[in-house]
């Protein structure tokens, strides 16, 4: 078995590396998506799936064959596929009379279904219909969500999180400024969700920051929300749990006051104040000769008085 707990050990280096990429880690890999068709699909749906696959390349697998399953009723075959291909996102396209041009976006946690949201495609313009040169494969897209519905409605909030997860691509520490070409814009208006994909051109403006001009390249979808299957709260919380090792270690004993001055406490052992090292002034040191002189001085003025 793959995650065999060490009983069956891999016999080659290559298989060992393969198993290591698939095991749970602190910092996870990019999420892969599996794109599959249902029992019956229309031309729109197949073209839509192909276009989203090209958006998500190379972190996606497109299955050619039809799978006669219904994700909302029985998710075991989805879970089996995800285990075999190590994908935690899926997109299931189907078409029937009751739900025409159906797309189900979903994600899995620990190879069990976490969230599933069904969207109906009302209008779809494919990639091939835009006769403009496209962005290269694998560019990290900029994501923009517009519309207050994405904050207000619970289901749309989950949909937003799912779409971010789906389209965001690998997490990189730095990005080339000239390579920020692709923008995916989601608008929620009037109960519908509009997805548009643009290529942004950085034009010269007077100052350092360029002016943006957009031209539409990619597929454009007009989606309507249908059924949803959202994870229960505790499963959702469990899925978000980050291991402690990832949290940045807090440096103790550092505090800042209102002005931003850094403070820290220094802890000392108990000090013997009589043996403290202080500044010494040699002139003020009490010497043996002085003591005698003082006494003499005291007695002298008396003598002087009587004399005068």
């Amino acid at each position, binding site marked *: 078995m793959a995650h065999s*707990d*060490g*009983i069956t050990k891999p016999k080659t280096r290559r298989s060992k590396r393969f198993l290591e990429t698939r*095991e*749970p*880690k602190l910092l*996870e*890999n990019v*999420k892969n998506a599996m794109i599959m068709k249902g029992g019956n699909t229309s031309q729109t749906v197949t073209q839509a799936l192909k276009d989203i696959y090209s958006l998500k390349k190379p972190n996606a697998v497109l299955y050619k064959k039809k799978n006669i399953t219904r994700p909302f009723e029985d998710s075991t075959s989805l879970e089996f596929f995800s285990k075999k291909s190590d994908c*935690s996102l899926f997109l299931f396209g189907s078409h029937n009379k009751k739900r025409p041009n159906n797309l189900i976006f979903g*994600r899995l*946690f*620990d190879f069990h279904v*976490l969230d599933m949201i069904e969207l109906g495609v009302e209008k779809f313009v494919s990639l091939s219909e835009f006769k403009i040169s496209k962005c290269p494969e694998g560019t990290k*897209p*900029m*994501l*923009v*969500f*517009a*519309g*207050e519905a*994405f*904050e207000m409605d619970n289901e749309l909030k989950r949909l937003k*999180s799912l779409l*971010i*997860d789906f389209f*965001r691509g690998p*997490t990189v*520490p*730095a*990005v080339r*400024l*000239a*390579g*920020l070409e692709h*923008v995916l*814009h989601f*608008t929620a*208006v*009037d109960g519908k969700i*509009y997805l*548009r994909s*643009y290529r942004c051109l*950085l034009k010269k*403006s*007077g*100052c350092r*920051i360029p*002016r*943006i*001009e*957009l031209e*539409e390249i990619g597929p454009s979808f007009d989606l309507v929300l249908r059924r949803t299957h959202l994870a229960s709260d505790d499963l959702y919380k*469990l*899925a*978000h*749990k*980050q*291991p402690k090792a990832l949290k940045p270690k807090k440096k103790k004993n550092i505090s800042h006051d209102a002005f931003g001055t850094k403070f820290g406490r220094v802890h000392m052992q108990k000090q013997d104040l009589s043996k403290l090292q202080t500044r010494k002034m040699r002139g003020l040191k009490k010497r043996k000769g002085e003591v005698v002189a003082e006494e003499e001085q005291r007695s002298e003025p008396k003598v002087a008085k009587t004399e005068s």
Partner: protein
Amino acid sequence: MLGIMAACSVEELLAKAEQEEAEKLKTISVQKELDLDFDVGNLLACDKNRIESRDFKEQKKEDFLRALARDNTQLLINEIWKLPTERVEEAIVAKLPEPATRLPREKPPPKPKPPTKWEQFAKLKGIQKKKKTNMVWDETAKEWRRRWGYKRANDDTKDWLIEVPQTSDPNEDQFAKRVHAKKERVAKNEFNRLKNIARAQKIKTPGVGLLPRTKQSKDELSRAVSVAKTSTASAGRFQDRLPKEKPPKNAGKRRKFEPLIGDFSSEKQKQLELLKVMDSKRPKLDITKAVNKQMREEDREEAASKRKGRKGGAAGRPKGKGGKGKGGRAGGGKAGGGGKRRGKPGKR
């Protein structure tokens, strides 16, 4: 006059400069009611402003969406351009912060593995792991060879001569002994590894009895059955037996000793019988039985050595020879006695 004119022109210049700057900024500034939420680590921007359905329906949808997208993207680009940049191989690169949006994980975080028996001991004693070099100097070959693996240094298995140590049996096969010892070490290592895994997962391993999912052999099964049978309050005396099951061979007590001072007459009988047998001069050994047993053993060994010979020629051959030699000689004692008598059966 000139001074005033100069002053006017200076003012004009300043005004012009301000105008130009405002124009420049106009190209990249966007007016919005509410500021957008930015997650630059994910290159994400969220616009919470209300979209008036009226505006949306008035214009053509695409143009409205495009204008909205342009504005939002401009704001996002403004944010990204605020990040610190550096130059990496002729490209200007902006350093992104950590992504701020909390997204669910793919798989649960890995559980820390409990330390193995050796790791516990090493921690207790303060033993540090020492990194060993890959290459070791090989005296016989006078070159650097790897510590383990193909063509290793000081390879034990390639010895063509092994000295028989003083304390061991001269007829023992030293090569076979080495191979056997290696197999034992490997098996012991594997066993300890599995024990560590079982301890890590807190799986209870049975001391006697069957492990789940392994291939059970006939003896293991029969042993497990007999152990289960005898582990009753009456030590298995009243347990039902299956129709064709044979009664256990060593049933009940292992040995029964007569009491020291018991039945005198029976003791006397036993002693007299013993004397009679010793006197009879008939061989106590059943000759045919012994000879048959020896022949059977020899056949078995030949078959085993043939199998071994097919599997691994050189390794098998000395073992087979050694084994056979041993068997031959051990049997030889018996057969010698039997054989000698065989030649002259009826003499006595």
